[in-house]
């Protein structure tokens, strides 16, 4: 039997999803369900002067109108901490509806609960709220002079600045210097399913919450903190989540508001954000500006790298997406300085968005490197190889695994890179100027810091159930874990059922930062391994077993049975063993302790991106014709779902490069295009020929199966490869994202 791990296996939940049988958090049928609708502040700064709920309260079906005037106070100020830490993970350290202050547009100011959604929506329009407005700050350009360097960013996990060597000395030593400023529009995640929480209290005061989340435990711990409840009294269920991309990686106020509303009306309550509310209720990728300075020798070896980021954060948190983690270690550069600067603005706290940090940081670095290659006069791949580093330049530690050279090589072959004429503007097909570009990709491998658990149980008929509390938000984790469990027990895939998505199951930290597959597979692998050892131990000590007296290390499992490696005919099925022992089932629980992040290895995932674009010489239209991405993500659990994630990431990179921008109306402090008609993401017709490949690396550090994950790496570097291709096509160097038609449109004659 060939191993299930690494094979192409169709999604085990695919049928349930396409047939509508899969229930998402807004589809849980509960008796007596009431519906909550949030009211967001239309102003971005000021105070609530008055609230008149009388008309709303009289409207048909209305059960409650909650605002700061009558909502019970939360038990504790939320503590901002990324959900990878495994603890309470509120998206910001501000909880709305506690007083009359308005910090940002869309801030929740009231919740209307009614017996139907339509009646709640209508009543919400009848709540009259008067505001005392003050002038908001929402853009970098409005408060550039007020920027500060924070002590820590990212919930206190990363320093506000970092350095090695002497960057000034490195710049003095340089024969070539590149200085460039890169600007990035704000971006929003826009998963297909808007965040939804359904909350139900029982008579004993236990709370059950159906939440669209990347981490059921994160929701549980956050609600425990905000509601002042023991976690044991809170159960969170999240069987299916309709995409997230970081918008459900932290726990935002609506989850607790749903629970508070349900307690108030003494009925189960469903609270679903509207598409427009998704732009102001669960974070975004912040508007940002990166200043990158490179110093290099005449032959292109880096002597200095300085990377300063400036971005907008909220009034209450020092949040910046960590854009400098991969950029800092990508190349062998002895002198480095990275600094985050922040501006406080009228916004909710920004948050993770797919490839958080590196999607922007690597755009700046990889575009600057392309400029350097041109100045030096070498091929961009060759320049990168000249600066290739065998060790983590920040620590000198070896990589846990790398594979970057192989990614460059394979990518060049798949793309047909060699022989490229590097001069811009030389290739034309009809109206189209054609260009090619490439960029490196990297993403830090982050680990959970607390134990990851799973439980494996085999029944007397040989069927297997494996459980771990991870949520399925489209990654394919349910299918991949079925494969891991099947291999560990030598069972057929059809014999194995994986269950996730509940805090009643063994704890898995929120699946974020590409860490979900590694952490969950480690726990599942250890659980099925422990169960296998129990089964083998039972057999070899059983006089009635054909395996009696065998060395356990010499027993293998295959096809639902155990047998001696040297004499495969000597063995028996699990079912026989369990029946004979009158065991209805056997069970094992694992407890995987992740290795420390600083335990002697640099841990990153690497890749290489190649792009070909066409730019209409007269109309400025930019269309991507081809993308090739090659990655070294360690072990791939499911070829098909990994391919989907990587390809989806690459198309997201295209989207970041050419389409995505949330535009701020600075007068009102409100997003001006908070809809899917106005916030562009690619359609099928935009998605070109996308080639995805992986190279194998020996990875035995990060986790037992060597899984680094594929959730983030696919997007990193795509925007730079496209921008470099646009330069190659036209000679126009794009230093902002998205790059749009007016950037390339020729000036009036």
């Amino acid at each position, binding site marked *: 039997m060939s191993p299930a791990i690494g094979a192409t296996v169709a999604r085990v939940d695919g049928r349930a999803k396409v047939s509508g049988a899969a229930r998402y958090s807004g589809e849980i049928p509960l008796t007596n369900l009431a519906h909550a609708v949030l009211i967001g502040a239309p102003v971005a700064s000021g105070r609530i002067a008055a609230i008149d709920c009388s008309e709303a309260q009289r409207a048909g079906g209305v059960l409650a109108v909650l605002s700061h005037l009558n909502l019970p106070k939360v038990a504790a100020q939320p503590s901002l901490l990324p959900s990878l830490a495994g603890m309470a993970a509120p998206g910001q350290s501000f909880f709305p509806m506690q007083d009359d202050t308005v910090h940002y547009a869309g801030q929740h100011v009231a919740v209307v609960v009614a017996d139907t959604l339509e009646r709640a929506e209508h009543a919400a329009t009848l709540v009259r709220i008067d505001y005392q407005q003050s002038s908001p700050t929402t853009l970098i350009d409005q408060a550039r002079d007020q920027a500060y360097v924070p002590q820590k960013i990212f919930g206190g996990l990363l320093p506000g600045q970092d350095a090695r060597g002497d960057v000034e000395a490195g710049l003095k030593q340089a024969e070539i210097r590149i200085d460039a400023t890169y600007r990035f529009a704000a971006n929003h995640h826009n998963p297909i399913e808007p965040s939804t929480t359904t909350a139900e209290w029982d008579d004993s005061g236990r709370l059950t919450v159906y939440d669209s989340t990347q981490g059921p435990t994160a929701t549980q711990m956050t609600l425990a903190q905000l509601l002042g409840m023991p976690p044991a009294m809170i159960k969170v269920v999240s069987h299916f989540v309709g995409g997230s991309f970081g918008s459900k990686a932290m726990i935002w106020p609506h989850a607790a508001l749903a629970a508070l509303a349900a307690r108030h009306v003494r009925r189960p309550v469903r609270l679903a954000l509207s598409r427009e509310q998704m732009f102001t209720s669960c974070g975004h990728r912040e508007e940002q500006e990166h200043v990158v300075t490179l110093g290099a020798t005449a032959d292109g070896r880096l002597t200095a790298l300085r990377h300063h980021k400036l971005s907008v954060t909220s009034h209450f948190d020092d949040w910046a997406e960590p854009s400098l983690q991969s950029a800092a270690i990508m190349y062998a550069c002895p002198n480095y300085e990275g600094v985050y600067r922040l501006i406080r603005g009228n916004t909710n706290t920004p948050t993770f968005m797919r490839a958080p940090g590196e999607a922007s940081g690597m755009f700046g670095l990889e575009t600057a490197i392309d400029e350097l290659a041109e100045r030096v006069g070498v091929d961009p791949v060759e320049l990168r190889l000249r600066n290739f580093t065998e060790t983590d330049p920040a620590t000198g530690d070896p990589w846990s695994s790398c594979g970057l050279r192989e990614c460059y090589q394979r990518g060049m072959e798949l793309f047909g890179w060699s022989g490229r004429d590097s001069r811009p503007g030389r290739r034309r097909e009809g109206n189209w100027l054609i260009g090619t570009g490439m960029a490196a990709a990297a993403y830090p491998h982050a680990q959970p810091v607390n134990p990851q658990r799973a439980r494996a149980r085999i029944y007397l008929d040989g069927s297997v159930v494996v459980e771990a509390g991870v949520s399925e938000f489209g990654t394919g984790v349910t299918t991949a874990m079925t494969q891991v469990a099947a291999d560990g027990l030598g069972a057929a895939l059809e014999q194995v059922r994986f269950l996730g998505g509940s805090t009643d199951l063994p704890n898995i930290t929120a699946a974020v930062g590409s860490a979900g597959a590694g952490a969950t597979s480690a726990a599942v692998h250890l659980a099925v391994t422990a169960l296998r050892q129990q089964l083998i131990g039972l057999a070899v000590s059983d006089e009635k077993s054909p395996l009696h007296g065998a060395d356990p290390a010499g027993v293998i499992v295959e096809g639902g049975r155990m047998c001696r490696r040297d004499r495969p005919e000597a063995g028996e099925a699990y079912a026989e063993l369990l029946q004979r022992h009158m065991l209805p089932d056997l069970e094992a629980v694992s407890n995987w302790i992740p290795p420390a992040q600083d335990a002697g290895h640099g841990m990153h995932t690497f890749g290489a991106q190649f792009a070909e674009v066409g730019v209409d010489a007269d109309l400025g239209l930019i269309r991507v014709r081809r993308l090739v991405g090659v990655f070294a993500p360690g072990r791939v659990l499911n070829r098909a779902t990994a391919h989907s994630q990587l390809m989806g990431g690459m198309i997201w990179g295209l989207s970041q490069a050419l389409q995505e921008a949330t535009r701020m109306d600075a007068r009102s402090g409100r997003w001006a295009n908070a809809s899917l008609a*106005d916030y562009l993401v690619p359609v099928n017709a935009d998605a070109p020929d996308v080639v995805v490949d992986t190279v194998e690396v020996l990875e035995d550090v990060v986790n037992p199966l060597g899984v680094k994950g594929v959730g983030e790496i696919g997007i990193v570097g795509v925007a730079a490869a496209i921008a470099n291709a646009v330069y190659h096509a036209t000679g126009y160097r794009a230093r902002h994202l998205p790059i749009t038609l007016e950037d390339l449109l020729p000036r009036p*004659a």
Partner: protein
Amino acid sequence: MRPISYSRVTDVSAAVGTVTADPASAFLAGGTNAVDLLRIYVEQPARLVDINDLPLGEIEQLPGGGLRIGALARMSEVAEHPSVTDRHPLISQSLLQGASPQLRNMASIGGNLMQRTRCTYFRDISTACNKRTPGTGCAALDGINRGHAVLGTSEHCIATHPSDLAVALVALDAEVVTEGPDGRRRVAIDDFYLPPEDTPDVEHPLDHGELIVAVEVPPAPAAATSLYLKVRDRESYEFALASAAVAMRVDGGTVGEVRLALGGVATVPWRARRAERILTGGPATTENFAAAAREELASAVSHGMNEFKIELARRTIVRVLETVAGGPSGDGAGAR
């Protein structure tokens, strides 16, 4: 959602009578725009009269080469109808470049003509908008206005008309056939779309309760050499940054009959008559096409972010004319 009463009607006079009698009522056809606007409180009818059962779905050829499209024919039906693809490919092209397949299966032709602007301020009831709430001002003038109009604007409104189909119909001199409390009438499409001027809320000459029953398109000799070109940030499912519909005949290097209309850049589907005057009888050269485009855009006014649209519109005109004339490059936009 506000409480709304809903009824279905089965004949045109009942539909007209019901809506005419109630100032707070509105017709409901495909609903792809009307329900959308209702849900964001931009339009607040108290009663919806569903007209989908009316016998207005036919697409038929008229004697002499014209075409009659029933108001309830769906965008997808019209786009694929042999009479349309044969005689008026411009209409088919403009429809297929609008919306998405799902929307085209729902949206009616009458509704397409009546769709409202995509201006984000029009659609956000907390902002100033003279079109939505007369007298409140125009937040788009110095706001986020990348998608806004540069032709036909006024100091009160710069909202872009969103329809692709209407651009083709304007180029083809279509007529809108309506039935109202005073009976049936025909309105030339040029008179159907009213520029904003001092009353941006008045978009067309229809009375309350007057229903579009059909669109008639006269024979277009140049239809065989026609093209709808749409320029936008993504390949599909997006409104135009600029578009052009042209039907043109070139004989011996000289432009004969030409019809040219613009979308995405004007407050109404824009017939480019100034350009047509320069083109007609002139040489079919890039230089002359550019001269016509310059003349058409001479009166354009921009408001910041949409400044690029003036040059884009000029270049779109030149491209569409060059493509139909067969040179110099002839491969069109949109191809990769």
